[in-house]
C-alpha cells in the first residue's frame, strides 16, 4: 500500500511537472505572435471562430482553432497582437 501511494505521488508529481512544462512551451510557442499584425495571423490561420471587439481598449479578442490547437489572441488599438495564448 505504501509503495502504491509512493508510486502514485511520484506519478502525480511527474504529471504536474510535465503539464507545467507543456503550458510553458505552449505560451512560448504562441508568444511568437506578439507584436505581429492581425492580418498576418489571418494569412496563416484563416478566419477566427469568434472575434469580439474590445470597446474599452479599441482592440479585439480573437479565438482561433488551427491545426488541432486552440488559441486566444488579443490585439491593441493599432491592430498588433498584444497577448497570445495556446489554450489546447
Amino acid at each position, binding site marked *: 500500500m505504501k509503495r502504491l501511494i509512493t508510486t502514485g505521488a511520484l506519478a502525480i508529481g511527474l504529471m504536474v511537472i510535465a503539464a507545467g512544462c507543456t503550458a510553458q512551451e505552449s505560451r512560448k510557442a504562441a508568444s511568437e505572435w506578439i507584436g505581429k499584425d492581425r492580418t498576418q495571423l489571418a494569412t496563416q490561420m484563416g478566419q477566427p*471562430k*469568434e472575434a469580439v471587439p474590445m*470597446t474599452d481598449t479599441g482592440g479585439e479578442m480573437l479565438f482561433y482553432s488551427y491545426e488541432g490547437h486552440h488559441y486566444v489572441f488579443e490585439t491593441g*488599438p493599432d491592430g498588433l497582437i498584444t497577448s497570445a495564448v495556446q489554450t489546447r
Partner: protein
Amino acid sequence: MKVRKFRLAIAAALGATLLALGPTAPARAQSAMLKLYVDPATGQVFTKPGKGRTLLTEVPAAALDTSAIEQRVEQKTQAQLDANKQQVSQLVQQNAQLELSNANLERQMAEIKPAWRSYIDNFQDKFRVGTLVYGDYRMYTHTGFQPQELTQINNPGPQNNIFNSFDITRTYLNFYFFPTDGWTARITPNIYRTIGGGTADTVGNGTSYSSNLDGNLGFRLKYGYLEYNKLFNGIEPLKGDAVQMGQIPNAFVSWEEDLYGFRYVNLTPWNYYSLSSSQVGLAVNGPIKFNELQYADYNIGVYDNASFHAQEQTNTKQVMSRISAYPFGAKWRFDGLGVTWFFDYGYGNVAPDTVGVKPFYQAPEAHIMRQSILAHYTAENWGIIGEFDYGHNAFSSGNLFSGSGPSTTTTFTIDKTAFSYANFNTMTTAFLNNGRTVQQGFDLMGHYHIPKTPFTAFGLWSLWHPNTNVQSDPLDFQRWVVGVQYQVNEYLRFAIDNQNINYYRGQTNVSQQYANSFAPGVFKKPASGTILDAVPVDTHSFWINMEFSY
C-alpha cells in the same frame, strides 16, 4: 692697399667656405691643416713658406675635400627633397581626406529629408482609423414601456404591437494617433438619434421653417482622450498599466461589455439601468501580473457627475473603482475564474444653488451609489457571469422610460372608457425619484460556442427591483434575452435573438396615499384615488442584430 684688399677678400671667401661647411670642419682640421702664404709685394698666394712670404691663413685639409663637400651638399639637398616629398605626401593625404569628407557630406545632405517627409513615411505606424457599426431589425409582438434595449432606440408603448424598425445604433469612427512611444490619443465620434423637436423658426411676416432636430441621426463625441502607458514600467507587475485623461470608458461598463461579448445585441445590466459607458475624467487602469499570469485587473477613476452627453453642473465629483481578482492566474484577459467588485459614488447633476421644490425637494441632488459583485468564469469557447447589483437613487423614472414612457398629457379611450397614463407616471416618479430609493438586481449571462461551427448561443437574465422600499413594487421586472450568433468572418457577425421585459407582479391597483408616502404631495389632497392597473404590460420582441468591426 690693393694687396690688403685682396688678402681680405681671400680671407672672407675662405671664412664663408668654413661657415658653409658647418661645425664638422674644425674637428677634421685638428688632424691636418693647410697653411697658405702670401707675397705682399705681388699678392701671390703660396702653399709653402718662402722669402718675403707671410702666413696668410690655415685651412683644414678636409675642408678642401670636394667630394666630401659635394656629399654633404647632396645630403642636405636630399634631406630637403625628402622633407618636401613628405610635405607633399601629407598634403595629398589631407586632400584625400577632404575629398572623402566632402563626399560624405554630400551623401548626408542627399539623405536629409524634410520633417513632413518623415512624418508621411511613418504615418501608417502613427495613425489608425477603425470603425464599429451596429445595426438591427426589431419587431415587437408586444410593445410596452421600458428602458432602451440599445443606445438611443425607442419604441411606442402599449397597443402598438407588430411595431418594427430597422436601426443603426452605433457607427464609431475610431481615430487612434500614436505620436510617441507610450502615448495614444483616441477620438471616437458616434451617432445618436435626436429626440424632441425645437420650435419652428419664423422668417419675415408669413414664413416658417420647420425644425429638423427631431429624429435625425446626429454625431456626438463618444470617446476623446489621451492615454499614457509607460508610467508604471518601473514596477514589473504593473508594466503597461495606463493613465487616461478626457472622455474615457468608465471603470465598469466597457469592461463588462468585453467580458460578456454581445454588446451589439443588448446592454449589460448597469448600462441598461442607468450608467453610461463613457465619462469625462481621469482614470488609472490595467492588469497586475506575476510570471506572465494576470492575478488582478483594476480601474479607478474620478469623473464628472454628468454623463458624457450632459453638461456638468455640480461642485462635487464621482468616484468609480473596479477590481477583478483571478485567484488561479489568467493566461489571457478574462481567462478562468474571476471575482469582480465595482463601486460608484456620486451625486445628482444639479447646480449647488438649486432650490428644491415640492414634492421632491432636494432629491435631484441626492447621492447616487452603484455596486456590483460578480463571479465569472471564462473558457476559450464558453463563459458564464453571475452578478449582484445594489444601488441608491440609481434608477429614476427617466431610466425606466428611456425606451418608451407614458404620455402625461394625452387621454385615450379603451372600450368607451377614457384613460390616461398621467397617474401611472406620477406614481412612478413617487417611487423612483424621491431621493431615498434602493435598487437591487440579480443577473446571469453566458455564451457557448458550438464546436466546429460558426455559431454561438448566448443569453442574459436579470431580475430588477427599482426600489426595494416599495412593497410588491408593480415596477419590478425580469429581463431576458436569448439568441444565436453567426460569425461570418473576423469583421462581421450576426445574431438572431428574442428580448423580453416581464413585469412579473400580478396586476394590481396602488393607492395615491401610498404613493404620497414616498413623495408627500405628489398626488394633491385628498389623494383618495387609486392608480388602476399599476403593473405595466410586458414587452416581447424579435431581433436580427449585426456588428461590423474593422
